[in-house]
């Protein structure tokens, strides 16, 4: 079946669109929808580019209420700020969101904007401003961000050292679906920072027993138990400490630290055998982890305490071998970073397609430098620098592509100029002739329309006489004049005859007047249609003629300017990437060197302890041999 598309179909469209909560309702503007399409895929550059253009065009319109974006303009401006925020353009995002806040917008949108502005200030560590932004929230708050606002407020208070205020907010968040576990943990930390030790321990214990299947909540539960266990360990409450450390999952992100601390807690109460259990597990784990490295030394230390010096010596030997291998690896990593491989690995496209790309870096060949950088990669400053470096790499790629396109555009313009430039003068000449003929016809048409309109108000039968009738009427007038010049007797007779003739003609003209006027009107209407078609074709020709010129004229200057801007931006990006990359490399090398120094220190200890264990093992063997 073939359907005819008409404007009436418009109403049916997009009514049923599934839209994001921020853009709820019927979507009337396709270009705004296109920006959302890119934003939902995380392509914020493309989303911003389109939405920026759409809003700019909307602002240029004389009657914006007729534009399809009009009904969405508040939402679009809000989204602009949101996209800028997500594209890490905090300066522009702040401006855009402030504009929304100051505009006459819906209460819900204004409150959402205030929350986002507060987040920007929080991320920039401007706590006073963040709080001011939150305090602007008034009236109806979108349900989806109510807990976000409270959690942010609590964190701002914590960062400002206002623990009591934070405690009050966090208490109200304990039942939150989204933040329950995190709020419980943070409440414990707030108590702790406020010096309320027993309340902190009680709260952390509660947070450490949360019932959940959510991986991030499970992690925060482990974290609560780890903090609780560590506090008790530092307070020499070793048995109690063990109780909490043992609650931590063995496959969670805090298990290594928990195993290490559990071993030390057992050691502290003199239960050396029990200490070997978590440390044995830990010593077989990923060797780059600092807890594992400590366990490699701690395990033989425990065996030494158990007087199993032979086993202690073997484990010290193993630790020494592993530390040497790791030091070697770290040296290679430092060299690799200095050769630029770290930055090359970071910008690999296949890695960035994966949301767990930081983890995957470890598994890639030729990127040993990432083994020891997980903590560094997770730090806020490094993340900011890294994201900026990746964004710059993206921009560089875009600019390179655009730069390559200029030659093609210029060639296209040149080909068009070569094609049209010789043709157009002749076409213009022909058009000029045609144009003058058309103008004449348009004038004639106009005159006929006027005559028809005049006849409707003031009947003039003679005007509708046929050419023959007009000729007869003319002839009668001539004969009348000639008769008037002759003698009277002849005149009277002839005049009577002429009068009769004229009377017959006038009778015909008057009796057929309405019929003739109808026919005349019908013909004029037919002519109207024909003239409208001619006018359309004329207009189309004019547009096409303009388009022919526009297809090659007026590109040179903007293209040259854009080429220069692309070139300048590319140079600037190269400089920024070099500086940003260097900073990342320096940080990575510092981290690796610090880890290497740490391992070298461990190696020295292991070497000394190995010798000591051999001595003790030999002495023990000698004593055994000497015994009867």
């Amino acid at each position, binding site marked *: 079946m073939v359907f005819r598309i008409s404007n009436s179909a418009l109403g049916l469209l997009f009514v049923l669109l599934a839209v994001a909560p921020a853009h709820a309702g019927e979507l009337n503007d396709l270009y705004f929808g296109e920006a959302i399409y*890119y934003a939902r895929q995380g392509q914020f550059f493309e989303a911003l580019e389109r939405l920026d253009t759409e809003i700019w065009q909307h602002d240029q319109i004389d009657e914006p209420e007729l534009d399809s974006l009009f009904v969405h303009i508040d939402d679009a401006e809000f989204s602009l700020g949101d996209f800028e925020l997500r594209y890490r353009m905090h300066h522009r995002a702040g401006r855009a969101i402030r504009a929304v806040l100051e505009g006459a917008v819906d209460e819900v949108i204004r409150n959402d904007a205030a929350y986002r502005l507060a987040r920007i200030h929080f991320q920039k560590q401007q706590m006073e401003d963040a709080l001011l932004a939150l305090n602007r929230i008034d009236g109806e708050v979108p349900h989806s961000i109510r807990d976000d606002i409270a959690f942010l407020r609590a964190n701002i208070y914590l960062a400002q050292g206002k623990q009591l205020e934070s405690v009050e907010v966090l208490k109200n968040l304990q039942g939150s679906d989204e933040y329950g576990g995190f709020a419980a943990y943070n409440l414990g930390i707030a108590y702790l920072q406020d010096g309320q030790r027993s309340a902190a321990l009680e709260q952390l214990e509660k947070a450490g027993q949360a019932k959940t299947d959510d991986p991030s909540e499970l992690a925060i539960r482990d974290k609560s138990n780890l903090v609780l266990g560590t506090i008790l360990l530092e307070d020499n409450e070793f048995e109690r400490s063990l109780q909490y450390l043992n609650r931590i999952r063995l496959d969670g992100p805090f298990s290594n630290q928990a195993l290490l601390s559990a071993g030390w807690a057992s050691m502290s109460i003199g239960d050396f055998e029990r200490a070997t259990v978590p440390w044995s597990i830990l010593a077989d784990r990923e060797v780059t982890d600092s807890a594992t490295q400590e366990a490699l030394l701690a395990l033989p230390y425990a065996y030494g305490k158990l007087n199993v010096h032979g086993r202690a010596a073997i484990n010290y030997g193993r630790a020494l071998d592993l530390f040497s291998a790791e030091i070697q690896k770290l040296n290679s990593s430092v060299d690799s970073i200095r050769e630029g491989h770290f930055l090359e690995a970071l910008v690999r496209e296949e890695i960035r397609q994966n949301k767990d790309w930081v983890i995957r870096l470890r598994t890639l060949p030729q990127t040993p430098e990432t083994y020891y950088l997980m903590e560094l990669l997770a730090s806020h400053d490094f993340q900011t620098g890294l994201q900026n470096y990746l964004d710059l790499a993206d921009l560089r790629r875009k600019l390179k592509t655009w730069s390559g396109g200029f030659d093609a555009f210029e060639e296209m313009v040149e080909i068009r100029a070569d094609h049209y430039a010789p043709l157009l003068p002749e076409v213009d000449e022909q058009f000029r002739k045609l144009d003058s003929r058309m103008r004449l016809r348009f004038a004639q048409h106009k005159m006929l329309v006027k005559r028809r309109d005049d006849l409707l108000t003031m009947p003039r039968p003679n005007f509708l006489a046929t050419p023959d009738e007009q000729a007869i009427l003319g002839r009668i007038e001539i004969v009348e004049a000639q008769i008037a010049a002759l003698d009277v007797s002849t005149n009277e007779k002839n005049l009577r005859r002429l009068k009769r003739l004229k009377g017959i003609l006038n009778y015909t003209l008057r009796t057929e007047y309405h019929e003739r006027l109808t026919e005349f009107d019908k013909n004029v209407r037919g002519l109207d249609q024909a003239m409208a078609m001619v006018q359309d074709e004329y207009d189309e020709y004019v547009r096409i003629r303009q388009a022919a010129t526009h297809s090659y004229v007026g590109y040179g200057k903007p293209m040259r300017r854009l080429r220069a801007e692309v070139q300048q931006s590319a140079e600037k990006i190269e400089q920024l990437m070099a500086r940003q990359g260097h900073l990342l490399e320096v940080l990575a090398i510092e981290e690796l060197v610090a880890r290497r120094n740490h391992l070298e220190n461990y190696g020295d200890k292991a070497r000394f302890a190995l010798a000591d264990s051999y001595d003790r093992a030999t002495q023990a063997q000698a004593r055994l041999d000497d015994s009867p």
Partner: protein
Amino acid sequence: MSNLLCCSLLLLLAGSPISSTAQELSGDSMRSLDGQVQAIKSDVLSIASELNTLEERLLFPSHTQISLFVSIAEDDEFRLDAVKLEIDGELATHHIYSFKELDALQNGGVQRIYTGNLTTGDHQLNVTMIGKLRNGKDFNESSSFVFTKGVKPKVLGITLAGPGFGTNAIQVGDW
């Protein structure tokens, strides 16, 4: 949420081996660079916008330009896999959707699937969508529409839905 959480979580995390002075210095440098990166992003966005406008003018003059947009109706029973568009019997585009693209469409996104040039007058658009139903069965639907291209740029919106919408599974509207 992750940043906020991160801040709280890191309160008690063991410190990095890097000295605090080095961290402060690098933090200052990072922040200074961050401002410059934001400025260059703004510059490049402005270039992109201007370049796109210029490119559109050059490649798709307004009197011949036609743009086709695709959106999908809210329909849990149906998953869109691909769309094929033909204009006057000629293949205009055949798009296979990635998970991210589909998610974007399901959340209010509108895809500009095709931009091209057409002469003025009547044309026929054939829309074919291929997808899967919730029960795993394949779902195919095709419809043809006639539209008139005038001297102004033509914009058509195509809305796709599952079999629950009957004969309205594919709708095309002038914009």
